[in-house]
């Protein structure tokens, strides 16, 4: 019952801003329970994520997926159980871009908050704009960008926080099917270049099967993890389909 013993492995406070390419990060949840009034959102969740692993969490609406991410990010504390892990950053469900900042200033928000000058922060973000297909859109305001581009900027902002663990909350939920597929591939490539530990929450089982190393299925409220499905690294169409079917089966159970 050692509630709130979070961030045990964290190097919190040590040397922000961290360099962009940074490897590693792990997450450990043991017996985590979270209650809001009479509603038990999470009930005894155990979860271990290894460095550079991409774990997808799927589950029905309201099963506590977002709560799970907020616990990992330290935005909430568990009522019971422990959350340990490296420093984590949240990419909220909607992109959360600040409309009064240009795309590059949005992406470079973390360095600026850490005290970098505007130019230094932009210089840090610029190579990523080039590498991730956003070159030429540095000065654009968020409302001038397409949905997919906004998500890319939001993802870069998350990367530039320098934290080893990324918590992505339905990152492609608001995109059309085609853009969504494109962004899934983009995310996979981005993580090859900039390896991070990723905890991805989605209600799209196919998305989980396409991008994750491992798919966890959560039950309806109170949320607990009811199935764990590894995704074969070869990721052929039939394998993805099989993971999808297993996950759907677990969701129906």
């Amino acid at each position: 019952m050692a509630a709130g013993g979070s961030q045990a492995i964290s190097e919190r406070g040590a040397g922000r801003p961290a360099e962009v390419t940074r490897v590693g990060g792990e997450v450990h949840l043991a017996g985590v329970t979270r209650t809001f009034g009479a509603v038990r959102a999470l009930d005894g969740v155990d979860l271990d994520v290894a460095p550079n692993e991409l774990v997808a969490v799927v589950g029905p609406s309201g099963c506590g997926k977002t709560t799970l991410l907020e616990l990992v990010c330290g935005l909430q504390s568990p009522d019971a159980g422990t959350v340990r892990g490296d420093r984590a950053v949240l990419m909220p469900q909607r992109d959360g871009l600040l409309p009064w900042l240009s795309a590059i200033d949005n992406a470079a928000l973390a360095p600026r908050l850490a005290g970098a000058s505007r130019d230094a922060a932009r210089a840090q973000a610029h190579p990523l704009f080039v590498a991730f297909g956003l070159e030429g859109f540095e000065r654009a305001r968020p409302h001038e960008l397409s949905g997919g581009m906004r998500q890319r900027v939001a993802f870069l902002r998350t990367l530039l926080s320098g934290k080893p663990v990324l918590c992505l909350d339905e990152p492609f939920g608001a995109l059309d099917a085609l853009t969504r597929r494109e962004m899934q591939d983009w995310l996979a490539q981005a993580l090859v270049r900039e390896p991070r530990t990723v905890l991805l929450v989605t209600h799209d089982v196919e998305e989980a099967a396409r991008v994750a190393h491992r798919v966890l299925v959560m039950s309806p409220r109170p949320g607990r993890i009811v199935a764990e499905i590894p995704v074969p690294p070869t990721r052929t169409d039939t394998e993805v389909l099989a993971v999808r079917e297993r996950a759907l089966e677990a969701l129906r159970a």
Partner: protein
Amino acid sequence: MIAAAIVAALLGGWELYADAGAVDDFILPAPSQIASSLWDDRGLLWSNLLVTAQEVGLGILVALVLGFLLAVALHFSGALRRGVYPLLVASQAVPIVIIAPLLVVWFGFGIVPKLAIIALVCFFPVVVTTLDALRSVDPDQLKLMRTLDASRWQAFRWAEAPAALPAALSGAKIAVAVAVIGAVFAEYAGSSEGLGHLMLQAIPQLETARAYAAVVLLAAFAVLLFSALALAERRLVPWAHRRPEGPDR
């Protein structure tokens, strides 16, 4: 075009009605009489307009600064909000007509009681719109700021304050419209110059056209201030005027 036609029709109708002699000149002067008063009394009107304009301009400035600071203070402190907010609402129930002469007795015929009255009628819309906007900032953005290790002040500086700026400017636009009335009330209560003072003198002298001319100037001044704020809004908060058709630069 249509707007101009409507104004022309209204003025024309007024002119015809007044010229027909149904009402005495000193009750309802014709627009042409008002226009000639605007010209004939231009020196008098101008010097008094300068006085009132200064009162209104400074009064709004005081109201904006106080209103914004107060909204921020109320936003940061729940106790302050619960304690002070009802008092703010109550302050708006204070009848200016009663309080204005008392302020004049207190502070004299100078600009101070004018500023106090204008600020009193103007700061309320600024506080309410700013505070509401500060409190309705997207909670996702605040969570994001926290996971990026932003301090409370940084969250305010980067997320809350810019989000509240358009609302603060809307509050200021409302304030401009009532500021002019506040200034006239303040001058009625006791002054030796200003357009309100001029009107107060013109009516018993049966110089009704001059009083109307003062009203025209006050209205024009309010419109000018309002437009200036609208312009400032476009400059300061361009993101609030997004164009739906997409990229424009």
